[in-house]
Structures are given as structure tokens and as C-alpha cells.
């Protein structure tokens, strides 16, 4: 039986991840160990969470340009309020998730382009983060630090966490009724509405989920870095979008994959390490990282084209 196009789409991020991992192991055999894998992947955990957050937004055909700034804001709250007065910190983080849901409502009701709204919000989040933490600092709550540096037997924390969050997000997006409606909004908003579902609720829920995963990303990041900085996660905006697309998602049509998105995030993180182990000049590294991205996407487009030709034949 021929593999379906969906299967290829799902397999590609893992093929890319496997190929890069093979390259890394070949260049640096030291990485092939419990500690090595953890070092390779632990900073990919917050990227994976941010990628999942972006995935929920992309699932409803929107794009969030404030993801990096929002993760930075969550990180600053985690390193200050959540550490000193946990209830207040928790409240602020919950409120920021509510703000995300409200953004979804506003974007839907006023028919505003999400790109513009989130671009504006990115300055709001960054401003709030600078107000909370004018100079780099703060401290990770002890329990969070313990959680992010735990050494479970057999499997490094970074991989265990990636598997867990991929599974959790997969259950929400692919197995729950809410996930089906959210993807339906991305696929065909009108038919979802005709079927009696509230598109407004679905979009608000998608944004709230994005806010939740964004907050988790900020918390995970602080758990790793031990302190925060308002600018700490600015590059997550583009990384998260790239991760979703690399993981088999599409900008339109509600076609997203949670497991793929996590694999995409790990691939992006690994690409940096791979290029560093290659001793490639830093001037070329950004370009090379882009080249890897384009290569994987070109591979996908090629496979899609073959699949379509087969379907026609």
C-alpha cells in the first residue's frame, strides 16, 4: 500500500530530526549520552511549548507575532511575582491567558487581522516585561528549577518533557471535540458555524490555549536559565512559526500536527547545535539554518507534488 500524503507529512519532521541527530552524533559522539542528549535538547523544551502555542493560533488561520514577547513577559512574571508571592504571580499569569482569549474574541468580532493585533500586542508585552524587570534578574522558583533539572532514570528530562507535552497537545488538538472544532474553524469557518458550533468560542479557546502554552514556555525557560530578562525570548516568534510549518502545519486550512510541531521545534534547536559542531562561521550560521528549513519544506512540497500526480493517475 502506498503511504498516504498525511503519513508523509507526519513522517517528514521525524526524518529531518533523525538525520540531524545522526549528523550531530557523528560529529560529536559525546552527545550520545544521557547528559549529552539533555544538553542538546533542554533549551528546546520552551521552544516546543511556544511552537505549540503558535500552532493553536495557526490552526484558526491566524498568526501570532507577539509570541516571543509574550513568552518573555511570562518569564519575567515567573522570575519575580511567581517566585516571591506565588498566588499573585499565578493570578497574573492566569489573567494573561484571559487576555489572550479576549484577543481572540476581539479579532473575531471586529474582523481584525491577527497579524496587526498581535504585532501591536508584542510591544505591550515587551513594555510590561520591562516594567516588571527593568534590568535582567529575578530568580526561578525552587520547584520550577527542580522540575527542569530533574534527572529521571532512563530518559533525559528534555526528551521526556518533549514527549509528554507532545502527547498532551496531541490529545487536545486531534482527539478532543474542542480540537476538532478549532481545526474546523481553520478549515472551513462557515460550515462549522452552520453545523451549530460557535466560531467565536472556538477562536477564543484557541487563543486561550495559545496563551496557556505561552505561559508554560516562559516558565520552562526560567526554570532552565534561573533568571529572566525582558528580551530573553524575542526570537521565539519566528522560531515558533518555523517550528509549526516544519512540523507539517499549513498557514491556512487548519492542518496542524502537535507531535509534528514538537518535532519541528526540536529540529530547529538541533540545527543550531549541528552547525556549531560543524565549526561553521557564525556569519553563515543564520543562513545555513534557513537553508535547512528551506530544504525540509522543499522536500515536503516535492512529496506533495508526487502525491497529487499519483492521485490524478
Amino acid at each position, binding site marked *: 500500500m502506498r503511504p498516504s500524503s498525511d503519513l508523509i507529512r507526519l513522517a517528514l519532521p521525524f526524518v529531518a530530526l533523525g538525520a540531524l541527530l545522526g549528523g550531530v552524533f557523528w560529529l*560529536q559522539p*559525546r*552527545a550520545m549520552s544521557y*547528559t*549529552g542528549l539533555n*544538553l*542538546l535538547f*533542554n*533549551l528546546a523544551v*520552551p521552544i516546543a511549548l511556544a511552537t505549540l502555542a503558535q500552532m493553536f493560533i495557526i490552526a484558526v488561520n491566524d498568526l501570532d507575532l507577539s509570541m516571543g514577547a509574550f513568552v518573555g513577559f511570562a518569564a519575567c512574571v515567573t522570575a519575580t511575582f511567581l517566585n516571591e508571592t506565588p498566588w499573585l504571580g499565578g493570578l497574573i499569569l492566569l489573567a494573561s491567558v484571559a487576555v489572550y482569549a479576549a484577543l481572540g474574541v476581539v479579532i473575531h468580532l471586529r474582523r481584525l487581522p491577527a497579524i496587526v493585533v498581535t504585532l501591536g500586542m508584542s510591544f505591550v508585552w515587551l513594555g510590561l516585561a520591562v516594567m516588571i524587570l*527593568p*534590568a*535582567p*534578574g*529575578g530568580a526561578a522558583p525552587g520547584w520550577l528549577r527542580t522540575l527542569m533539572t530533574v534527572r529521571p532514570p532512563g530518559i533525559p528530562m528534555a526528551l521526556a518533557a518533549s514527549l509528554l507535552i507532545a502527547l498532551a497537545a496531541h490529545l487536545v488538538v486531534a482527539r478532543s471535540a474542542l480540537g476538532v472544532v478549532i481545526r474546523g474553524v481553520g478549515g472551513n469557518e462557515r460550515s462549522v458555524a452552520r453545523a451549530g458550533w460557535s466560531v467565536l468560542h472556538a477562536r477564543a479557546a484557541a487563543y486561550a490555549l495559545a496563551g496557556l502554552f505561552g505561559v508554560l514556555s516562559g516558565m520552562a*525557560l526560567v526554570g*532552565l*536559565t*534561573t*533568571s*529572566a*530578562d525582558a*528580551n*530573553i*525570548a*524575542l*526570537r*521565539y516568534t519566528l522560531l515558533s512559526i518555523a517550528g509549526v510549518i516544519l512540523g507539517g502545519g499549513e498557514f491556512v486550512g487548519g492542518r496542524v500536527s502537535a507531535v509534528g510541531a514538537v518535532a519541528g521545534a526540536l529540529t530547529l*534547536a538541533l540545527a*543550531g*547545535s549541528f552547525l*556549531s*559542531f560543524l*565549526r561553521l562561521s*557564525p*556569519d553563515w*550560521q*543564520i543562513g545555513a*539554518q534557513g537553508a535547512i528549513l528551506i530544504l525540509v519544506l522543499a522536500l515536503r512540497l516535492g512529496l506533495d507534488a508526487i502525491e497529487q500526480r499519483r492521485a490524478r493517475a
Partner: protein
Amino acid sequence: MRRSILSTTAPGLLLAAVLSVAAAPVLADTSDKRIALSNNYAGNSWRQAMLTSWETVTRPAVEAGIVAAADAFTTGENSATEQAAQIQNLILQGYDAIVLNAASPTALNGAVKEACDAGIIVVSFDGIVTEPCAWRIAVDFREMGRVQVEYLAGRLPEGGNLLEIRGLAGVFVDDEISAGIHEGVEQFPQFTIAGSVHGDWAQDVAQRAVAGILPSLPEIVGVVTQGGDGYGAAQAFAAAGRPMPIIIMGNRQDELQWWKEQKDANGYETMSVSIAPGVSTLAFWVAQQILDGREVPKDLVVPFLTITQDTLEASLETTPVGGVANVEYTLEDAVAVIQGAN
């Protein structure tokens, strides 16, 4: 053929080995150690000079077998998360020491701790980190501000109005130098700071800012600066037709060039002070010394580079156009700094 090479090189090698053991017994112990430089930014003349100095000093050190490797790594974007990932990669690559100019004083602490736990020596300089297991080679920016006012007090005992040019708002270095200048003014109360502008450490920005504030200011006798802004300030004063005050320079080539021209034309006198980008090489030697087993205090202070009326010509000659006056450190300098801190 083969014999002759052997016969000429073998005694040479032997001699070198004997010499290195006899002259500096510390050298032998780090010959298999590998040191990496982790740098977060390379986008200005100071950082470029820093990387060049690293190359100039470490290459002979590697060739002489003092250390096995001294590789420089720069992140593509100036971001803490990327540098943290870079440090974790360096751990995996098995470096024995990491010399670090950090994107953030705190956000790299997790990665630095990972490195320390893996038995790696971490020496931070310029952009230092707060993680206690790392060494810090800090610049006394406050003192750098204070000495400017002290110099002016020596030149102008009766005091007067000063114009302060600050750096990039919100950056730690700007706050520190400015605090030092204000300390200096408290110490020498004959001076008052009549105005303060942000020059962002760039000549064009400084020139615009100074030109903007000049009409509202009384007579200015001195301009206290942070480096990279003295030439712009001089241009603004000249354009406004105001008497040229004593402008403290910041070791940039264009500043030294202007100073030299003025000195030749009318005997203009001032001083110039900044941090030498070669501080990266001091950090290299400190890391080498720690690897060698020397007891080194966790906090070291790097001396800043002062250019006076007498050393102007010599400094200008060695400073490339568009560059910064620089000094590269030797093993002996590092030992002196370490002993000074003990």
C-alpha cells in the same frame, strides 16, 4: 631527507621543551587543555577588535603548545537563549574552559551552572554573569567616570559648567559610568553638570544631541563622555561657534585623530579613556592560569586604557582607521592582575 629533518628538529624540540620547563614551569600543565570563547555580538568596531585581539594572542599560544585550542564562537543573533544553547554545545564539545562575553548578566546562569557542573572553568569578562561558580573580569566603569572629573579638576582648579554625554539609555554600563561622573562632581564641587544628553556611544547621535542642547547652555568648560561620542561633540561645538571646552575622548580613532589635529594646530590638551577590547586576551590568560591550578579570586578588575597628551601619537599610530585603541595582554599582565586582586 627524513633523517636530516629529524636531526635538526629534534634538538630544537628538546631545547624548547627544556626552555619551557625552565622558564615557566606553569606552561606544561595546560598543553592539552582547550579553551573556547563564547561571544554574543560582533556588530561594532569594539567587538571586532576584541575578536581580532583574541586571534592575535591565542594563535601563538596554541602554536607554542601552551594550550591545545582556543576557538572563538559568536552567536548569530544577540540573544541570551541562543548563547545559552551555544554554551551547552561547548560543554558537549568537551572544552576545558569557556571564556564568555555574556548577552545577559543573569539569563545564562543556568547554562553556566551546567558548565561548572561538568567541571568546566567559566571566565566571564566585559558582559559578566552573576552565577557564583564563574569568574568575573569586570570593568570599574564608575572609576572610569570619576577619573574624568578628577582630570578636569587638575586642569581647571576653579571649576565651571560641564556637559555630560551619556550612552545608550537603560544599559547597565551607561548607568555605571554616569554614576561615577556624578560621584566625581560630588568630590570636586567646583563643577556643576549643566546639561546631559544621550549620545548612544555614536558620533552622529552625539553630534545631533549636543547641537540640540547647546543653545540652552551657559559657557561649558568641559565635556564628560562615555566613549564614541567625543568627536561628535567637538563637531557640534565647532559648528555652533562656541569656545572649544576640554572634551574627554574615548579612545576611538576619529577622536584621537581630531585631538591630534587640534594639538598640532593650537596645543589642545585633553585625555582619553576607555576599555581596551583586548580584555578578551586577559580573560584567556586568566582561564589558562585557572586551568593551570593557580588560585584565582572570583572577582577581578580590569584596568582601563588611558591615553594622555604624551602617548597620543603612539596610540594613534597603532589604532586602525574606524577602530578603537587597543592593548593586548600577556601572561605576565594576567598574573599581575591576579596578584593585585589577592
